[in-house]
């Protein structure tokens, strides 16, 4: 019965943790659509983008913007959920294809150098240097050029793929095909002063605005950000209810409308179950001992010389593709970085930076990675279709990162 219990455990832990974030943000997004705030935001942002001649100019911009936002929301899947609720309708309304928009959101959190990253803190401690020194002296000189070149690859790859797949659904057709249009038909339209439209236009972006403010306040006080995505979403919902109350002066109807939030939460249950399924598969791989075996092999590689980083990156890629994450592996390898580098006769950072960056880059190429499954579930695309779009920029980034590591570190 133990395997069944593992599945049950996965349901309870996922529902209480990341699943709850997904449900809350889906509920908030549904409520924003219902009160008409999403329409105001989308029309406001798309009208400011009307002068852009080619929508593909937005590809590198959105990719880099997403990566900067990952400083505020470090979890790749949480950031993807927020961007799916806020940025996705805007990108689609500007005429960007479904697959390009999905690929950009799936690759929004990759390798931004930040001294706040827990992996950077742990590696810097193991290498006996300050986190700032490690991040800016070693991590950033590799990750920043890699990110910039990946933005260029994203531009050309997404454009090339869109040219091949020209039978793409328009946003209007997408909404109709997946039953979203019917839901939207029941929504309210915001008409009134510019001030009122501005307030409604801000509401869908409120969770991310609060998170950015919390991040800046935290930085200025020398403390890490304290607010969780869950708390921020609930605060935003409460503010939205008050805005509705003040705008409509119909307490009974406004409170009745709050049920849309709960209905929206229910509609995202499929994505949560997808995550549980992926985690059950990963637990199965753990149970047969394959992860432990690869990890043990990595820990005992000695005397590979300058090829050691390359060998370690290959193993990291295998683990990330199989499990959808390289975080656990990076932390497991941290105590071994210095002795392994010493035995190979290379500097520790020549080993730590490639392993760390490879894990974060290849996540968006794994069919069981939470971020891929969330984007696939929300956009009604197959994980394979998304991986096809993310693979070339991410593998390109991996190769650039390896070349730069050999050259600069």
């Amino acid at each position, binding site marked *: 019965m133990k395997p069944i219990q593992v*599945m049950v455990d996965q349901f309870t*832990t996922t529902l209480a943790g990341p699943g709850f974030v997904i449900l809350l943000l889906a509920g908030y997004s549904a409520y924003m659509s219902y009160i008409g705030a999403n329409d105001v935001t989308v029309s406001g942002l798309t009208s400011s983008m009307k002068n852009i001649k080619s929508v593909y100019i937005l590809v590198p911009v959105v990719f880099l913007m997403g990566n900067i936002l990952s400083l505020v929301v470090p979890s790749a899947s949480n950031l993807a959920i927020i961007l799916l609720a806020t940025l996705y309708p805007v990108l689609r309304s500007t005429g960007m294809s479904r697959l390009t928009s999905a690929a950009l959101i799936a690759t929004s959190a990759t390798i931004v150098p930040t001294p706040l990253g827990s992996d950077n803190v742990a590696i810097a401690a193991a290498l006996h240097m300050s986190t700032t020194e490690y991040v800016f002296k070693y991590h950033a000189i590799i990750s920043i050029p890699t990110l910039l070149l990946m933005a260029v690859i994203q531009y050309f790859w997404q454009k090339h793929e869109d040219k091949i797949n020209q039978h793409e659904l328009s946003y209007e057709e997408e909404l109709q095909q997946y039953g979203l249009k019917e839901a939207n038909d029941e929504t309210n339209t915001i008409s009134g002063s510019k001030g009122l439209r501005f307030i409604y236009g801000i509401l869908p972006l409120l969770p991310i605005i609060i998170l950015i403010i919390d991040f800046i306040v935290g930085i200025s006080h020398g403390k890490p950000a304290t607010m969780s995505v869950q708390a921020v979403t609930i605060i935003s919902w409460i503010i939205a209810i008050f805005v509705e109350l003040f705008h409509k002066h119909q307490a009974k109807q406004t409170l009745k409308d709050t049920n849309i939030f709960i209905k929206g939460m229910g509609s995202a249950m499929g994505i949560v179950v997808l995550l549980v399924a992926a985690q059950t598969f990963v637990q199965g791989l753990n149970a*047969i001992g394959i992860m432990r075996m690869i990890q043990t092999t990595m820990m005992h590689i000695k005397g590979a010389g300058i090829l050691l980083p390359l060998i370690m990156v290959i193993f990291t890629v295998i683990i990330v593709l199989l499990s959808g994450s390289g975080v656990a592996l990076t932390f497991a390898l941290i105590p071994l970085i210095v002795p392994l580098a010493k035995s190979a006769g290379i500097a520790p950072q020549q080993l730590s930076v490639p392993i760390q960056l490879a894990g974060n880059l290849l996540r968006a190429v794994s069919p069981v990675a939470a971020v891929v499954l969330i984007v696939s579930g929300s956009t009604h695309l197959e994980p394979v279709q998304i991986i096809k779009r993310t693979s070339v920029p991410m593998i390109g980034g991996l190769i650039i990162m390896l070349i730069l590591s050999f050259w600069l570190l």
Partner: protein
Amino acid sequence: MSQVIAIILTIASVAILCYMLSKKLDIKIILFALGLVLLYCGVFMGNKIKVLQPVDALF
């Protein structure tokens, strides 16, 4: 021996997953099924079954 079995099972399960994905079948039930089969294989191989990775590891 158990290492060889683990490698064979991993390759087989990944191959099945890729095949099912290429056929555009519902990935949820495939992942659940493969996960359960691998978990039972782990039990038969005498491995200790527990929730090894925190769920955050997927993120």
